[in-house]
């Protein structure tokens, strides 16, 4: 495919990096030192859930087992997210080295990249890079001469299922099963792939780690906010002049993002992809961060010309299609919410029924088995609430004045 080469600017991930330098630095270090560095950095997972990396790795490191795994979650299925594609294409070294550091720290000999089927075209370049690393002894046996450290990376291709990005569904898929989320506990850090301790991390999380190792936790933590340290890659799309991947410090406001992207007449911003929340103009002062508007990095911008009910319909259709059907709140709930959207579209609803649907959405948030069903009501609730006037006014026979 044609790859567009862009010069990217950013303070952490897109800052300069010398290939292999983090690996050289960690080889021989006690794993506690690495864990401490990560703890000081306060790096949290970039895949959505925001779990502290040091804790996840410490738990996996502490598990006593011969075989352990580190998995790079490259399933990137959230509509509106494409930053992992950019990382895997242009910053492959960072992702691989993050995995190698992970392997060293938790005591895993094998790393697996779970690559979404939609990105099959990245398979060959990734394999080539892995070969290159092997040839330079940055992968394989006795890495950089350290006889106690063997580590290999393989790639596993997904087959077009969004829920497989959820870590336990991903593990089911790796094992050759339907991608249905598991009950937790046990957590993957204790019983993951093949029932062995497994750390699953997002591509971006892994790609951040080599920079923290080489430049230090304090350097990293100077960016962002107290609760959200560092920077975040944002996948910006929709109604703006300059869509693309941006690296910005946590704590940036929606307004600042809109300015950077050259967005005009913005009416709405969906933060966090289809499963995220939709903000209206009165909320553009909100800050990106785990403590405020948390996000896996997707920012979708809608200008005044967009029909928010159609936006909501698009999201709900997605969830109906992608629910794995294992549990009732999600399987039936999403269908009911989509029906509700269509009722509004046809002007064929009662407010009493809408209230019932909101209750149902609340039940889904607490009773669904995995994050898909827990978060799919987010756009339904936030769009109906934040764009109430528009949506109710768009009912045929209603008041069309804005």
């Amino acid at each position, binding site marked *: *495919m044609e790859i567009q080469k862009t010069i990217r600017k950013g303070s952490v991930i897109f800052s300069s990096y010398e290939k292999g330098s983090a690996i050289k630095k960690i080889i021989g270090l006690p794993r506690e030192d690495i864990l401490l560095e990560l703890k000081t950095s306060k790096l949290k997972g970039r895949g959505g859930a925001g779990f502290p990396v040091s804790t996840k790795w410490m738990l996996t490191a502490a598990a006593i087992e011969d075989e352990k795994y580190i998995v790079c979650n490259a399933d*990137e*299925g*959230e*509509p*509106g*997210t*494409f930053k*992992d*594609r950019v990382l895997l294409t242009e910053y492959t070294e960072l992702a691989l080295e993050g995995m190698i550091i992970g392997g060293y720290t938790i005591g895993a000999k094998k790393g697996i990249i779970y690559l*979404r*089927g*939609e*990105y*099959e*075209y990245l398979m060959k370049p990734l394999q080539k890079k892995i070969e290159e690393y092997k040839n330079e002894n940055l992968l394989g046996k006795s890495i950089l001469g350290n006889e106690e450290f063997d580590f290999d990376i393989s790639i*596993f*291709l997904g*087959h*077009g*299922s*969004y829920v497989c990005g959820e870590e336990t569904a991903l593990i089911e*898929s*790796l*094992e*050759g*099963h*339907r*991608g*249905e989320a598991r009950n937790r506990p046990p957590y993957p850090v204790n019983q993951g792939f*093949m029932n062995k301790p497994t750390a699953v991390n997002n591509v971006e999380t892994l790609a951040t780690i080599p920079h923290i190792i080489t430049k230090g936790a304090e350097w990293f933590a100077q960016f962002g906010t107290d609760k959200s340290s560092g920077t975040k890659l944002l*996948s*910006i*799309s*929709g*109604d703006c002049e300059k*869509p*693309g*991947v941006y690296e910005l410090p946590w704590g940036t406001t929606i307004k600042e993002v809109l300015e950077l992207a050259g967005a005009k007449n913005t009416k709405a911003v*969906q933060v966090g992809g*289809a499963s995220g929340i939709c903000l209206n103009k009165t909320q553009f002062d909100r800050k990106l961060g785990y403590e405020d508007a948390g996000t896996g990095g997707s920012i*979708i911008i*809608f200008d005044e010309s*967009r029909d928010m009910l159609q*936006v909501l319909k*698009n*999201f709900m259709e*997605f969830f109906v*299609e*992608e629910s*794995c059907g294992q549990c009732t709140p999600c399987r039936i709930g999403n269908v009911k919410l989509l029906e509700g959207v269509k009722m509004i579209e046809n002007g064929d609803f009662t407010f009493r029924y809408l209230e019932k649907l909101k209750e149902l959405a609340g039940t889904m948030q607490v009773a669904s088995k995995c994050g898909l069903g827990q978060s799919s009501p987010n756009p339904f609730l936030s769009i109906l609430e934040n764009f109430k006037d528009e949506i109710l006014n768009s009912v045929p026979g209603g008041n069309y004045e804005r």
Partner: protein
Amino acid sequence: MLIEEKSSLVREIEEFVKLYGKKRSSLLPILHELQNKYRYISDFAQQEIARQLGIHPVEVYGVISFYSFLNTEPKGRNLVRICQSVTCDMHGKENIVKAIERELGVEIGGTTKDNKFTVEYANCLGLCDQGPAMAVNDRVYFNLTPEKAVKILNEAK
């Protein structure tokens, strides 16, 4: 299916089992190989994979039916998948779909009479900053116009 075809398929599956290992976790990679080559996984192939991996055929079918990239019915030689995610939709997906439907004489979800194309929707292809986008087999195309999309398909083998 002819006997020779069957026995060559059996041998092929044997090769894949050798390559990936006789274990459950080899199932998806093996299905992927067959899907890529034959564009579907036949009943016979399902039973043979199950036999060779020592699992029940229902398990194999269960896995195929879960993943949208695997199927049990033959598709066209080229699989065209048009991204239906919100930003591609906002940037004119509908016109791309209509142009392709007109030009190929097939509705979305269908296969052309000459078996050359199957046209489907895809969920987010991860090209939201460059929509509308589509995939033809394992290649992706973006910043499409109806004309560009049709031209790409005309050049497909």
